[in-house]
């Protein structure tokens, strides 16, 4: 073992202490409460509530990730290919919302999207509509608020990997006869994809744990699994069952992330090979 390897030790110890150990405890209390029991498992799968909410959570997280990609990737491209002098300024603008609390950002949507909010008042004033449109408290608002919160992550990770793309490869593809779209699709995109992939994974994992924002701006049906865990912990002191839901959340998240990594690696390699 090289001496440098010792440098990883503090981080490793910390990880074991604050991540591995709690996850082990989580596993334990899901099945030992206090003796070995499968009752949490039975309860989870015997009610439609938990499965339905879990499904809803996955759906909202997947779509939020997708929307972040659709909006974030082109923005990152724009910044990465803009004049060097302005890049820092653009990045600063993107990071700006990070300094505002999530709660305030969620509330600020209310003044924009409300029945008597900016958009509705303007549209009515301009005569486009005569009855206000209900935009708040819908699943659409949930996506809007979540994408707003997560978008900077996607832009930053994409931007990072785009800077590392050798422009000469794209030029080479063009010289060898590829059209601009083909050159992008066959060369630039696969090379910049690692950033988009890591951004997507981070955003997906974060979204799976969200619950305050959807509860604030969402409608009746926008319940996230985090809401149910919170209720079990804070209202019922049923930590065993809360752990079990947490465990299911962890497993489902891991499976989807691994599936994503497996599928995209396969695709990208294929593409570069072809």
């Amino acid at each position: 073992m090289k001496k440098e390897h010792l440098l990883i030790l503090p981080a490793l110890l910390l990880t074991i202490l604050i991540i591995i150990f709690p996850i082990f405890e989580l596993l334990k209390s899901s099945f030992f409460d206090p003796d070995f029991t499968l009752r949490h498992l039975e309860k989870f799968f015997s009610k439609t509530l938990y499965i339905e909410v879990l499904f809803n959570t996955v759906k909202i997280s997947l779509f939020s990730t997708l929307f972040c990609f659709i909006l974030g990737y082109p923005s990152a491209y724009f910044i990465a290919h803009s004049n060097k002098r302005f890049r820092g300024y653009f990045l600063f603008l993107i990071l700006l919302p990070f300094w505002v609390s999530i709660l305030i950002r969620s509330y600020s949507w209310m003044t924009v999207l409300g029945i008597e909010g900016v958009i509705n008042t303007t549209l009515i004033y301009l005569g486009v509509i005569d009855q206000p449109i209900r935009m708040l408290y819908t699943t659409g608002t949930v996506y809007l608020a979540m994408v707003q919160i997560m978008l900077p992550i996607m832009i930053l990770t994409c931007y990072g990997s785009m800077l590392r793309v050798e422009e000469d490869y794209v030029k080479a593809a063009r010289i060898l006869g590829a059209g601009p779209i083909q050159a992008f699709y066959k060369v630039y995109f696969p090379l910049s994809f690692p950033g988009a992939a890591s951004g997507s994974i981070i955003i997906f994992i974060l979204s799976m744990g969200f619950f305050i924002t959807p509860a604030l701006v969402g409608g009746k049906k926008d319940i996230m699994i985090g809401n149910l865990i919170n209720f079990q912990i804070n209202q019922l002191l049923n930590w065993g069952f809360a752990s079990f839901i947490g465990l299911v959340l962890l497993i489902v998240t891991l499976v989807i992330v691994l599936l994503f990594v497996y599928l995209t690696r396969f695709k990208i390699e294929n593409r570069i090979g072809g």
Partner: protein
Amino acid sequence: MKKILKFIISFTFISFFLTANVNAETIYVNGYGGTTWENITKAFLGPLKAKTGLDVDLVPDPSLAKLAAMVSANKCDYEIIELEGATYILAVEKGLLQEINYDIVDPNNIVADSHKKKFGYEFVAFSEIIAYRNDQFPNGGPTNMAEFWDVEKFPGARTMHDRVVGSLEFALEADGVAPSDVYKVLSSPGGIDRAFKKLDEIKPHVVKFWSSGAEPIQMIADGEVAAAIAWNGRLQAMANEGVDVFYTFQDGNLDSGIYSIPSSCSKESADTAALYLNAWTTPEWAVVWAKLMPYPPFTGGVAEQLDPEYAKLLPTTPENVAMQHQTDWTFWHANYESLNERWKEWTLE
């Protein structure tokens, strides 16, 4: 520059020792911050300090989960926690609370026994009630639950608390059950189904089930809903700020906040904490509080000292009590988890 630094350092040290010294004289309350705590400070903490030298500080946002963790670690980070009916019963069941010494809290015996629970003192009353902005219904809006449910006669969006407790009772009241009979019907066979069936009727018109008390207020103010179920204190605060809001206690839900002492606190600190509870039973101070916040305490002699016009705004005024149902926590404790699950399933349907 050095001088300033020296000063800051010595000042920090001195103030550290000073606070460490008076620590024995400070108790901590795990309660809600904001206007409530400001008014508690005005009405009770100033006079209490003058009388007993006791300092009371806030640990914001009460959490049953944190209480359980604290008790299992056998620590006493705060001497008092604010609970509500459901969390109180659960905390008693799990042995998280200790008995309250009413010889200190209410030496003159001026609070009715029903508010002096073994492990918790019911210190304030509040209500969840029907409210709307007057301009939403120029010819008068809903004044009882049946009318709140009647979207033909009183059209427009609604919001209700995302909470099964209270909502089932409201549904039965809308279905013609008298407030005093709601728990009799709920406990009888088919009663719960009847409530859910009635809730089906209003559900398409409920744009949002709110979870924090500020939300319905915002939704009324912003015109997101035509009518709402909201807390009376927040409604009055809204009216004080100039919003033309109507509210009625008819078919409302009367409930109370509970102060309890964690079982992991020593007997001495519990007795010191009881001095703070005693402040709430002191009529002169309680009157000041009731004038600031329409969440009155249950101390005898308070209602008589209030302006009769103002008393009408309080949930505990006898005429208002008669219009409402009072949460029956015995019923709810027996059904809490299963009905909560059913409620969530119902909202997803």
